[in-house]
């Protein structure tokens, strides 16, 4: 990403973000609310179109007029804070929808892969349950399976545990950690400090639309250089 800017009306949300994510990276983005973390994620898969600057995926500039946003989004998985599972489809239906409707994979084949993915997130037995019949933690795990179903180049996590009851946070973080260990490239907006310290390869601190600090988890979270980072980390650890 280079010099990324986004305005919502007169509100300047992103004020020039430069960020590079390598294949296999696990990048955790922290920062106070309203600092532009979610907008940054949404700029990557073009749910929000940046006003200035460029997003590159494997060297291709994707926020270009010639490129269809759908094509970009098909290569990027996303997990939302509110899960956003398709309410009219079963867990299996959620995971296989993209495969069937976009890749044109046959039903049987897609379901085989879908069941394997649900097994990986520990929900093989819940394949036929509708979202309303699942707990928050289970819904989020299905959402993760859905996000990786298309073998994306990167998965974006937008505060995946913030809407969960405390009892479900661990099971979701475990799944994300496992995915990271398997070598998935991911960008995670999260305030889970232990997760950031144990799993992240790099941590980015954002405030007011800018990246203030970037580095190894211990550098940013334990020995922050910047005043804003210090006070933020202190507040989080309280």
């Amino acid at each position, binding site marked *: 990403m280079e010099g990324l800017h986004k305005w919502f009306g007169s509100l300047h949300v992103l004020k020039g973000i430069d960020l590079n994510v390598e294949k296999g990276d696990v990048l955790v983005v922290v920062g106070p609310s309203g600092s532009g973390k979610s907008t940054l994620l949404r700029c990557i898969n073009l749910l929000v179109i940046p006003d200035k600057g460029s997003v590159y995926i494997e060297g291709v500039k994707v926020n270009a007029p010639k490129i269809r946003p759908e094509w970009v989004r098909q290569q990027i998985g996303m997990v939302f804070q509110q899960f956003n599972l398709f*309410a009219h489809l079963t867990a299996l239906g959620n995971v296989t929808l993209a495969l069937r409707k976009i890749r044109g994979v046959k039903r049987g084949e897609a379901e085989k892969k879908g069941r394997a993915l649900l097994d990986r997130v520990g929900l093989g037995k819940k394949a036929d349950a509708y979202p309303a019949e699942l707990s928050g933690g289970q819904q989020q795990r299905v959402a993760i399976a859905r996000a990786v179903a298309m073998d994306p180049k990167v998965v974006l996590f937008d505060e995946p545990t913030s809407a969960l009851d405390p009892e479900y946070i661990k099971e979701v973080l475990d799944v994300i950690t496992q995915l990271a260990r398997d070598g998935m490239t991911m960008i995670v907006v999260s305030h889970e400090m232990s997760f950031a310290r144990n799993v992240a390869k790099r941590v980015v601190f954002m405030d007011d639309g800018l990246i203030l600090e970037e580095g190894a988890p211990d550098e940013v979270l334990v020995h922050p250089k910047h005043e804003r980072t210090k006070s933020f980390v202190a507040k989080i650890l309280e």
Partner: protein
Amino acid sequence: MQTETPPLRPRVEQVGEKVAAIAIIVLLAVGILFFLNRSSPLKFDWMAEHFGDLLEPARLTLLITGASYLCGMAMGFTLGWLRTLKVRPVRVVATGWVEAIRGTPMLVQLLFLFALFSYYNPGNLSLRDSLLLTGFLAMMINTGAYQAEIFRAGLQSVAHGQVEAAKAIGLSYWGRMRSVIMPQAFRVIIPPLTNEFILMLKASSLLAVIGIIELTYEAKVFSFTTGNFVEVYAMVTIIYLLMTVPLAKIIAWLERRYRIPGLGMQQEVRARPRRPSDPTGQTFVGTPVSRFWNRLTRRE
């Protein structure tokens, strides 16, 4: 996500309510018939003999309603969809059209079209066909506007997060429409769509005014030529009910059958909330009929 739902009313109370309601209706009907019979006895034999004569015009009623309803659905979907678009001029035009149709009586629309067609007869249609066309178009235009509102509400009822998730997995606009928005919207709009069909079936009786020989027109002619007014309209009432009531029941059954947890209307009969001003919680619970029944059956 979880919302508080009031507890189910006891099964006994639900059944009791229905029994009481049916009993009252039957009593009323018997009473009316009894008093009618004293002045001029109803000719039940004659009614049984001529019931079949009314089935042919009833068929036309169903046919023209069905055809105009389906074409109106295409029109309604398009208009409703246009109203959800971001392009302002498109939205304004669609909204204006819908409001104009909804804001005028269908009888006036029908007569307006009838007047137009009497000036410009398209092609060389026979009188009967040109009347049928007029009636069909009037009903289609009318239901189109009402269905537009139903579709618009349905499309807009789909949560933003669902649309965003559909975008995020890479579905195109029409892919999202087909695989996510429409399936969810449909479960919400089936009850109002059913209701609209029943309304149109009844509104088709207005076609009698321009001389289309549907059920009501036939009833008018039939009653005048035979003099058996009450008998004919009793039969017509029964035929309309035979068309509307089973339909509503079938749709309600389908809805229950294809219900998905957490989506669409809740089917169970829920207790009405109690008024806070009523500490005993007795006075305002249930329908008038169920309250009456409860009072009758209270053991004290």
